[in-house]
């Protein structure tokens, strides 16, 4: 059950973690919550799109290889609906060409798996930093 936290005002920034791997889900939740972010979990692309549109997370951490709708398609749909929504592609597809491919597809940043925990936090913090803040 995702925790519902305000994305406006002074509430914690919300991060949607879309990954079909349970271990990855747990790791991300554990690390991001510890860093002070609210965490939403989606297990496939379709779920990710639904949650993103419904909950307006500040940042979406999106896996690519997911059953059903993959991460890239989910990102495309989300960006189409919410162009301002930040999406980080976090994929174990980590060939050099993959990074370019993801950026070209509209990703705001790319995080290769496995990642350093500090890097995960830093990417999310960077994208959630408000210009006004």
């Amino acid at each position, binding site marked *: 059950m995702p925790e519902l936290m305000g994305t406006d005002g002074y509430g914690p920034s919300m991060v949607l973690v879309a990954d079909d791997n349970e*271990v990855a889900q747990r790791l991300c939740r554990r690390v991001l919550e510890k860093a002070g972010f609210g965490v939403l979990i989606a297990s496939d692309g379709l779920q990710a799109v639904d949650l993103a549109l419904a909950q307006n997370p500040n940042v979406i951490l999106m896996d690519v290889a*997911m*059953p059903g709708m993959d991460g890239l398609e989910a990102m495309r749909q989300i960006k189409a609906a919410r162009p301002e929504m930040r999406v980080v592609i976090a994929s*174990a*597809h980590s060939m050099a060409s993959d990074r370019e491919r993801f950026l070209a597809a509209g990703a705001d940043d790319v995080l290769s798996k*496995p990642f350093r925990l500090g890097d995960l936090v830093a990417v999310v913090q960077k994208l959630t930093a408000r210009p006004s803040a």
Partner: protein
Amino acid sequence: MPFRTRGLVRRATPFAGIAAVFAVAIATGAPALLAFPLFLLAVLSVALFDNSAQLIGIGIVAALAILILSITQLGPTSNLATAVFEVAVLGIVAAAVHEVVEHARLAEGSAEQKAIELESIDERLRMTLEAAMIGLGLVTASGRWVQVNEKLAAILGRGREELMQMGLLEVTSDADRGVVEDALGKLGRREIVRWEGEVAETAPDGRWIPVALAVVALGDHVSGEPLLLVQETDISARKRLDGMRDALVAVRHVIVTANSWEQAAPALLGSLCSHLDWDLAQYWSVADERHALRLRNSWFSDGSNLEDFNDPARNLSIEVGGGLVGRVWQSGVAASLDDLATNDYEQASAERHVGLRSAVAFPVVSGGTTMGVIELLGRHARHSDDDLVMLLSTAGVEIGQFIQRTETAEALRHSEADHRAIYERSPIGIARVSADGELLEGNPALLHMLEHDLDTMRSQAWPDLLRAYDQAAGRARIAPLLAGIPDQRSVHVRAATGGGRWLWLQLTATSIPDASGQLEHLLVMAEDVTTVRETQDRLAEALDSQRSANATLEKLDRTKTEFLSIVSHEFRTALTGIQGFSELIRDGGIEPEEIRAYGGYIFNDADRVNRLIGDMLDLDRMESGRMSIRLADVDINDVVTDVITRAASGSAVIVEFKADLDPRLPIVTGDRDRMVQVVSNLANNAVKYSPDGGIVTLSTRAEGGFALISVADTGLGIPPDEIGHVFERFRRVRSGAAQSIPGTGLGLTIVKQIVEMHGGKIWVESAVGHGSAFHFTIPLAAEHTAPNPLRHA
């Protein structure tokens, strides 16, 4: 003159006698009667020895003397009568004597006349003999000369006296002596009266003199032998002309009948020698690039002992202007040496040594070029006259043309023979084809190649080949052979041999025009290019397969890249948990409970990585054929039971295992460990994709020499779009609830490999929501293909 003086004296004597008696009688006055006998004596002497006129003269003188004496002496009357009487007596006696003498004289005169006449005939005959233009002579039947004329002596080249010492047979040549002897014998025996013939007689120098000889029987000689008249005419001039004519005829005959100079040369040189009476003939041919003449052919009669002269000449090389031959070569004009004895001709000593004394040489000419020189040498000195030189010059031209002709023909024959040899022995099949496409001739290679004889080739194989040519020509845009206008480009056609083999033939047609440029016939060359074509085809195949191999390699490369991408993705996914949670633990500040949980995540992912690596290595070994399977008799039912026991005890998921095993299932041949791997993999998959309380049924049965093993579940099922890919690597069913089921994605791929390595098959049936059933077969052991009755018990 003394003759005539003596005659005058003799005739004057009676007159002087009478005058002397008359004077004495006057002076002495002796009676006339006494003087009368003296007068009578004188008259009688005249009457006996002299002619009538003198007798009349002496009679008148004597009568006058008697009358004067009788008048001057006694009485004229009586004395006168006596005187008249005496005169009368004188006259009568004188007349009588004269008559008798005349008569006797007449008789004597006719005999004398006859003798004179005979003498004159003889003289005339002798003169005629001498003056005759032919040789005449008289011989006895034994051939001894009785008489010969100068001409005959001249013909025979001997003095008359010398000739008279010899006989006809002695001067006749050995060759003709028998004939002449025979003729003389017949004439002598009067069997014939005349014999004629042409024979050779011999001159003192041994030379033969051709003569026309006629022998006629005359009267008997004083010796009693029959006398024969011999007529001889020197016919050497005619013979020479005949010889020249015959020589030319012979030369022409040889030229007409011979095919080559080498064949003609002996007869030709021999003819020149025999007809023109030479002993040696040599043909000197221009050689050494026209720098010298070399002896090419020669002829001499057997027994002429000229080998010793001729043979060394073969090593001689005559240069321009050297000797008679060299001079003739240089000048191109025939020349002769009449007597080598008086000539310092280079070879003369050698020639003199073998008794050769004369020579004539003439050029052999063709087309204005001297090809060689023919030299004739003889053992007699002789003069080669203009006729001979002319004749030989003519012969030289004819011989030259002949040599030229035959050598050209020879060269043509060689050329023809070369072409024939090429045609006959060429490994390329050659067909001579008429303008309308009919096979005229096929060389052995063609017939051999197509395994036909000429007849079947002509009637069957050739028309097929012709059609094939034209079809191929049509495809290649080459003029068809049937149109008779082929070019030299080649076409490839398929042709059946008489032996039923199929060949690829390369046909190349060439048109052969006649003198007017019209197509006369065609040459079609056929080469068996079957090997070439097959090699080409194989090459093309190899290229194709190379190309497809390349494509496969490219695909493999792509697959490999894809595989690497997938594998690295799998690893990184697993490592994400391992790295992340271990980083959390490392950084500390985590509750022990949490640590234990994270340790579990780490262990699972590490285990997954390990399995992944194991599966990959297995698969690689299987795919590269490096995995061996240890075949043995395997009881599949035992395997299945074993797997069920382990799965049921180890699985956290609650599923029900059912076994539907055919108790009569025969033993299979296989690797038991691998069988266990396959069955347990399928069973684990079934468990993984089954909900709690699901049923996994494992069944076995024999079917057509195979054991059929099925693993069916009541699980999620496989979507239709994925069912075709389940055996592919890393193709995990991720849709719906299956997404969270762990696995390497290599299990089914490995299973399929193992089954196929055993000679079996694997397939899947599935319906989403109802479950899936994986089936595979393993061949039964050979001796157990029949149901095992023991198992039933």
